């Protein structure tokens, strides 16, 4: 086989327009790993770099930069803060020498601390399309899912262990009985001592979810809309779903005929908190290993997660498809592999244009599906 023939085969397999003989020949050629790699290496080294696609190189770099960012930022944070403290201590010591009084030492240390609280915050961001891992000053560990933000003051682990989170995070908390670990997730306040739990609080989601893996956490809210009458504690394998207060309730239904429709009713909906017991927490925390696990999850909800994970926007013209439910695990797939897999089991086609993915009903296959359902 020549290199050119090899590449023609790759094109066919890649595009999906292939015959069994193409598959066989490519399969056989790939077994000669050394030859294939030699070809590719030669090709890569002789390529002249020109703009090959309509692609924004800077945007792509920012994505990469986003993924290496946290590490370097946290490093610098941990190096800088002790230095500042050292200077403060030095300043205090000089003052002690000057005034020679223990009282003044205490007074000044107090003021310094207060100033520090006002000034400094540390913020860790996982942009869309990326995840981050953070080790906090108390050695608790946090995984941040795509499109999430974590904020804490520089006196974290000195006077408090308060954090605020928007988006989704998994927390592995170090035990410290004196300083409770408090996560403020939108309107929900979660207090933990030493435990593992997952919080999902995206601004545009309708619910705030807290899933406990280990230990015990307390749920509270200071917002009027969510005042609980009693203290609520979660135990392992329990999940709390706080349904946010909305002014509109969306009612979806699928009529018997073909037309897709959706109606909205004005309704006063009050917030509520649902505690689910004996749940399987694995699907909720799979994202931190770059996996997505779905248990009979609606396509519409899956698409939201994919949007965050791959930094894309979905357009879907059919409500019917959005109501299909899928079960399965996505390991470390590319967006196209995910879509191909869904396409294999549901009657739709897709096209990708930049950051926009459009899903279309394949009416021919849809008819076959309908027939099977009769």
């Amino acid at each position, binding site marked *: 086989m020549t290199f050119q023939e090899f590449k023609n085969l790759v094109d066919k397999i890649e595009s999906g327009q292939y015959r069994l*003989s193409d598959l066989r020949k490519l399969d056989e050629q790939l077994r000669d790993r050394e030859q*294939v790699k030699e070809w590719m290496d030669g090709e*890569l080294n002789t390529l002249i770099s020109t703009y090959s696609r309509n692609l924004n190189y800077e945007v792509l770099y920012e994505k990469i930069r986003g993924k*290496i960012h946290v590490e370097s930022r946290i490093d610098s944070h941990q190096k800088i803060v002790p230095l500042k403290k050292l200077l403060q201590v030095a300043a205090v010591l000089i003052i002690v020498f000057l005034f020679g009084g223990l009282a003044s030492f205490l007074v000044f240390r107090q003021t310094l601390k207060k100033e520090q609280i006002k000034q400094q915050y540390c913020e860790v961001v996982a942009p869309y399309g990326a995840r981050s891992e953070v080790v906090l000053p108390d050695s608790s560990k946090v995984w941040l899912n795509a499109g999430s933000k974590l904020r804490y003051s520089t006196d974290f682990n000195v006077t408090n262990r308060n954090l605020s989170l928007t988006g989704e995070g998994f927390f592995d908390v170090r035990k410290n009985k004196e300083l409770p670990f408090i996560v403020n997730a939108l309107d929900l306040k979660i207090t933990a001592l030493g435990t593992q739990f997952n919080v999902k609080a995206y601004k545009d989601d309708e619910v705030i979810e807290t899933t406990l893996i280990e230990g015990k956490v307390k749920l509270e809210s200071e917002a009027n809309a969510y005042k609980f009458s009693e203290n609520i504690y979660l135990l392992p394998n329990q999940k709390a779903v706080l349904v946010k207060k909305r002014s509109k309730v969306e009612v979806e239904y699928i009529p018997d005929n073909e037309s897709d429709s959706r109606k909205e009713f004005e309704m006063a909906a009050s917030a509520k908190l649902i505690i689910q017991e004996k749940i399987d927490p694995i699907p909720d925390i799979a994202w931190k290993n770059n996996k997505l696990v779905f248990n009979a999850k609606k396509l519409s909800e899956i698409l939201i997660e994919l949007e965050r994970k791959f930094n894309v926007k979905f357009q879907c013209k059919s409500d019917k498809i959005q109501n*299909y439910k899928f*079960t399965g*695990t*996505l390991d470390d797939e590319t967006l196209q592999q995910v879509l191909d897999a869904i396409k*294999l089991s549901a009657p739709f086609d897709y096209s990708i244009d930049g950051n926009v993915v459009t899903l279309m009903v394949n009416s021919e296959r849809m008819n076959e599906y309908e027939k099977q359902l009769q």
Partner: protein
Amino acid sequence: MGRQTKYDENQLTERIKSDDVDAFKKLYDLYCQQLLKFISQYLKETTEAEEIIQDVFLSVWENRKNLQIDKSVKSYLFRIAVNKVYNHLKRKVVERKFQYYLIHNDINSENDIEDKIYFKELKETIDQIISQLPDKQRKIFQLSRLDGTPHSEIAKKFNISIRTVENQIYRAGKFIKSKLSGDILILFLIVNLSADYRQSS
């Protein structure tokens, strides 16, 4: 000129080794276009090609401490790219094989004798892998994926929940693909069409 480039590259490697993000960006600017042109010949989707590019550069950054000054960072970069593309092709072939197996049943539809043998082997391999599945899981997989029996019917037949049916099919698919490729599998999604659809209409 050649010596100059060599020197710059050594310097670049050294700076990346000492966590210099600007040097990393310089490396990206130098080779991103060339790499992307190469990768996009094998992966037609821009998003997929982009993901490989990200992987390549991230793995340079993650392994920066192991970079060797006297060896070109460029050749390291290129080696990773070639490996990633090669692995992608391997994975694609396994996916297509499994897909082909699910869609085509009849060996006699192939004209070419080599294709016939290849398909026969593929079929035998996958059938053999299927035979290694636990008894119940195998039956469920065969009923669903090969005979097209709705999940609700399978659930009734075995007196289990539809979720269990899906779970079993998922595990079976994962097992088959991992055996077929020799590495950890990728994925398998199952539509819970029958159950969901009746509920909502």
